[in-house]
């Protein structure tokens, strides 16, 4: 438990992805089975026990600490698990003599005990464990049992770290992952080259998806339009739907995100409908969308469905989930991935037609003869067949008709050609220091547009961006921030901005939505810095009405 706690502690403070990877790989290399396997399960969210409630933890501490001191401490620290971890009284030194004969608490003991013990035993067991651990150990244990690790590690990143032990790609881990279970002895044995690859016995395994490279218009000149098929690029969520039957003949249906995280539980309505499709087993690659009266809803609507922990019947009825299929990876025991795209497409069309399921449809092919045709479709999807769904189109997907389905992002077979981003000129208002290589640089900028305020023209923040600039530009902006600071709030600096003074940043973004959470009433998607407008006076930056107009224009389309 101690080593796992130290790992979580370091991860929680480490902002860089690569350094997180190294911390995990180092841990997996140097920690024996089964401890590392349970740690992997904790990091990937694969531990199945019932999580403890905050009330239980409060009750335990109130038996041990003066309530006034607890209240003052909680008020100061601000996080229940952390407060309790810090406050927990160490068992008296004299009594500890007996405890010293015991081996230190192991993560495996925690996991196996929690899986088998009843709810009534939990307070007593938990108290005994907290007595046996140090502060970091207690913190990690409380985070683990309440189910909120929050150390900034995705399941994918943890699997990547395991792969790094033996030079395996994360996709190779994904291929076998869903047939495995904690503590993953067979996985580590394979990665370390001691045993053969574990057999995938999962009836509904995840298949690492194929991804596309962005294309520039200049690239098109050397490509032949006849080699490619085009589809709309939908502004939803990539989703893989896999179905099969387990050993007892029971139907298993799973839905996976692009990174292989299972999210079936979030879409019971969709899962229910798709479980009845007429096939022994299948794997569909498609886009998760919200459809109302046959119209694809913009991403902001989809987000409202995603942001729920528990889904109510009303919520499901208000936000009906739907899969728009663009590939068929397997059907009835046959793996289609080695087939050419055009062959898979024929099979997909036949399969979707046979299913006749309202929640499943085909992503249509966009017909074109020349790149000019396609550029026109991309510029105006509504007139090129997307019609009412045009607002949910974020570009064009290009797939070579002869391309087989390869996991990862191979160069050449698939391209994405996004619609041109929107631009807005905004004024820098705040800057925040970055992390890792950018630590000590003011690299995250909040910017605003003009609007009519109570005391005349004022800037209202519309977003935050930290990418799009070169290292040289970063240094220039950092110098600008340091020379124009008017206020400091911890790591944040407020810079000078007024009608006469201020720095204009040209911000590019992919989309825009109404937002009740933002003061400006709008939220930008993927904002980044396109150009630094050293030349442009602050008063000539855009007004908020420009963005509002853009939104209305899209709504009326």
């Amino acid at each position, binding site marked *: 438990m101690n080593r796992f706690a130290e790992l979580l502690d370091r991860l929680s*403070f480490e902002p860089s992805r690569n350094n997180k990877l*190294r911390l995990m790989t180092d841990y997996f290399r140097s920690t024996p089975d089964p401890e590392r396997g349970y740690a992997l399960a904790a990091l990937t969210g694969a531990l199945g026990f019932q999580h403890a409630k905050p009330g239980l933890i409060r009750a335990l501490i109130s038996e041990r600490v003066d309530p006034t001191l607890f209240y003052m*401490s909680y008020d100061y620290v601000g*996080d229940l698990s952390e407060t309790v971890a810090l406050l927990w009284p160490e068992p008296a030194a004299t009594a500890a003599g007996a405890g010293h004969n015991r081996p230190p608490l192991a993560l495996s003991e925690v996991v196996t005990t929690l899986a088998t013990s009843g709810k009534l035993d939990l307070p007593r067991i938990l108290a005994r464990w907290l007595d046996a651990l140090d502060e970091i150990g207690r913190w990690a244990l409380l985070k683990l049992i309440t189910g909120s690790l929050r150390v900034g590690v995705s399941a994918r990143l943890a699997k990547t770290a395991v792969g790094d032990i033996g030079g395996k790609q994360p996709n190779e881990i994904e291929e076998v992952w869903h047939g495995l279970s904690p503590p993953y002895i067979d996985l580590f044995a394979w990665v370390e080259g001691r045993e053969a690859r574990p057999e995938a016995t999962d009836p509904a395994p995840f298949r690492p998806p194929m991804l596309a490279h962005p294309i520039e218009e200049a690239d098109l000149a050397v490509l032949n339009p006849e080699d490619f098929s085009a589809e709309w690029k939908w502004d939803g969520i990539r989703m893989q739907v896999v179905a099969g039957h387990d050993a007892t003949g029971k139907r298993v249906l799973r839905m996976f995100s692009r990174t292989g995280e299972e999210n079936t539980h979030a879409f019971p309505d969709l899962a229910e409908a798709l479980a009845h499709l007429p096939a022994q087993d299948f794997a569909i690659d498609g886009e998760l969308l919200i459809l109302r009266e046959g119209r694809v809803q913009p991403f902001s609507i989809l987000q409202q469905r995603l942001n729920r922990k528990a889904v109510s019947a009303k919520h499901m009825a208000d936000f009906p989930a739907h899969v728009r299929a663009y590939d068929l990876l397997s059907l009835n025991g046959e793996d289609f991935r080695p087939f050419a795209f055009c062959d898979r497409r024929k099979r997909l069309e036949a399969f979707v037609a046979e299913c006749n399921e309202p929640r499943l449809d085909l992503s249509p092919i966009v017909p074109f003869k020349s790149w000019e045709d396609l550029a026109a479709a991309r510029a105006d999807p509504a007139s090129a067949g997307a019609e009412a769904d045009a607002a949910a189109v974020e570009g064009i997907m290009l797939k070579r008709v002869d391309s087989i389905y390869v996991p990862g992002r191979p160069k050449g077979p698939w391209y994405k050609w996004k619609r041109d981003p929107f631009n807005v000129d905004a004024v820098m208002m705040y800057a925040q220091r970055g992390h890792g290589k950018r630590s*000590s640089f003011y690299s995250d900028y909040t910017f605003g547009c003009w609007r009519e305020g109570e005391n005349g023209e004022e800037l209202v923040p519309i977003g935050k961006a930290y990418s799009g600039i070169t290292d040289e530009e970063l240094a220039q902006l950092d110098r600008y921030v340091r020379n124009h600071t008017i206020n400091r709030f911890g790591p944040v600096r407020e810079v000078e901005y007024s009608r006469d003074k201020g720095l204009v940043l040209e911000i590019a973004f992919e989309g825009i939505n109404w937002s009740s959470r933002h003061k400006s009433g709008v939220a930008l998607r993927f904002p980044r810095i396109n150009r630094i407008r050293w030349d442009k006076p602050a008063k000539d930056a855009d007004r908020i009405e420009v963005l509002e107009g853009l939104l209305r224009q899209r709504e009326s389309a």
Partner: protein
Amino acid sequence: MRASDLLKTTPAGLYCAAGDFHIDPLRPVKRALITHGHSDHARAGHESVLATRETLAIMGVRCGPDFAGATQAAAYGERIGIDGLTVSFHPAGHVLGSAQICVEAKGLRVVISGDYKRARDPTCAPFELVPCDVFISEATFGLPVFRHPDAAHEIARLIDSCRLFPERAHLVGAYSLGKAQRIMALLREAGWQRPIYIHGTMEKLTRFYEREGIDLGEVIRVTGPERPKLGGEVVICPPSALQELWSRRFPEPVPAFASGWMRVRARARQRGVELPLVISDHADWDELCETILATGCSELWVTHGEEDALVHWASGQGLAARPLHLIGYGEEEVEACEPAIPSDEADPALI
């Protein structure tokens, strides 16, 4: 005599009318008794200063030889008469030369702790328990969430990180007086044999510690051109330097900070610290409680820090406890009379 007749709080700090002296005064006074050399306790400009030899020397290093009109050195345990009172200085274990001050008047014994700790520190004399009637304690870490781990364990984490990230410079923010040198000494005890690099503002005090016979091994002041080559090395700097341009030319720095505040995660995150090291020169909650009881005092005054919780606890122990609400202490980081940062270290954008 009651303690409240002997000592009063004034805008300049704690004042003893019977002896006409202030303890750790915040503004220039006629006669100052000073517990230790941190800038929030030891300020320049007093007519006369009574302190330990080391504290006087530290004030000289920090503020120049003319920091006071007259000075008098007090040896630990020496009984010094002032206008019918007896004062004595006793080790506080906080930094080199730090002292508790004991004031005795007509059978009443009051001990002013100054800042203190009970944990071992290879760079200064250990805390000495002085039995008393009234104990005037600090409470910097006066909440039960503050329990400092063994400093050796934290140093081991630092060394471990240097091993895991040998290409990254490990910048350890630490107060220039006491903490920085304690870390160097602890690194040596843990077997760290590489040179230890320091920020220019730490050099004078570090060399002073060395002259006082404290072995810190090879300590090198960082120069500009060297910075990019210090991957895997330990560089100790004032906490504020972690956020300045100074830190930039080091290879992908790991910002570390050695302080009792690092016990609380949010405090570490607010400062952008990636490797928090819980190493403190102050008593933690358990040490505060244990010390207060061990002095046998019947009355507790709390000078600065998280007074409320400690007063609440002491009242529950049957002590007459009250907070003094002294302000102006606990800001060791503000190095008031420190010379300006040498120009090659300065942030050009800030000048």
